[in-house]
């Protein structure tokens, strides 16, 4: 039996915002719901209207999927641990009076950090699935690169390896490992 136009349109709206496997699962559920209304004696168009109404607003479904997106969860965790890692670096650099790289490079690192925080915040708060996923992955990659740049910069500056500096480098390395591990499920969606 051909799919009623209302159901096709509903799925098209979802397909524009969600990955194909999720839309396939929703399509199966919506088809079953439609079939159930047909079995109750409704005309095909009325059954389609009831099925779509029962499923709920597409934006509500998309927002719920955005909330369970692994990239969004990773973004929230990175935002949570960010101040801790940042404080480790601030204390180490200020206490040891180490300022790796020339001033323009430091400004660049600062701007990159602001951009990354913006990306992670966009992922953590967005109700749009694809935005939450892409911003989360970009923020995740960005923070890992920034940590690597910080570790490399301090190492090549020849800064004294005090325990504060080692603690900051360990914190950054742990964050790189967390970001890398989190990227696998985030990219699989």
């Amino acid at each position: 039996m051909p799919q009623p136009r209302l159901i096709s349109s509903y799925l098209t709206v979802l397909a524009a915002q969600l990955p194909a496997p999720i839309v396939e699962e929703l399509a199966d559920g919506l088809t079953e719901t439609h079939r159930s209304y047909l079995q109750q004696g409704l005309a095909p168009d009325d059954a389609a209207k009831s099925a779509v109404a029962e499923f709920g607003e597409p934006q509500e479904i998309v927002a719920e999927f955005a909330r369970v997106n692994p990239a969004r969860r990773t973004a929230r965790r990175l935002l949570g641990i960010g101040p801790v890692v940042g404080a480790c670096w601030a204390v180490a650099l200020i206490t040891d009076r180490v300022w790796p790289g020339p001033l323009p490079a430091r400004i660049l690192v600062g701007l990159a950090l602001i951009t990354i925080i913006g990306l992670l915040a966009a992922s953590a708060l967005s109700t749009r699935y694809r935005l939450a996923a892409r911003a989360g992955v970009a923020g995740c990659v960005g923070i890992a690169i920034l940590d690597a740049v910080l570790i490399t910069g301090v190492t090549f500056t020849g800064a004294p390896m005090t325990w504060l500096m080692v603690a900051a480098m360990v914190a950054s390395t742990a964050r790189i490992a967390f970001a890398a591990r989190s990227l696998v499920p985030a990219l699989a969606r």
Partner: protein
Amino acid sequence: MRAEELKGHLDAVLLAALEDGPRHGYAVIESLRQNTGGRLDLPTGTIYPALRRLEQAGLITGSWSVVGGRRRREYRLTAAGNRALSGKRADWLDFSAMVSAALEGRPCPSPA
């Protein structure tokens, strides 16, 4: 019952719907409807993200099959899901017994 009233208990309700064996999304919804005498009034589409969340938490596991030319995702409880369901069920029984006792003005039974 509206969705807001079920908040906090949706996970337990979904896990319970999978206790008797694997089910796909629509069958989970049908099971909830039957078990609650049709009183559970949730936007059906929001059940699917909840199932994904439980899967990410390792409480259920999903697998694909093809039925009638359509791809279908079926979910089953994991061992962790079974343990979580037992815990949530016990918590709910304690909680409901406490609230019932308070509302009816009788002594609260000791927790199991």
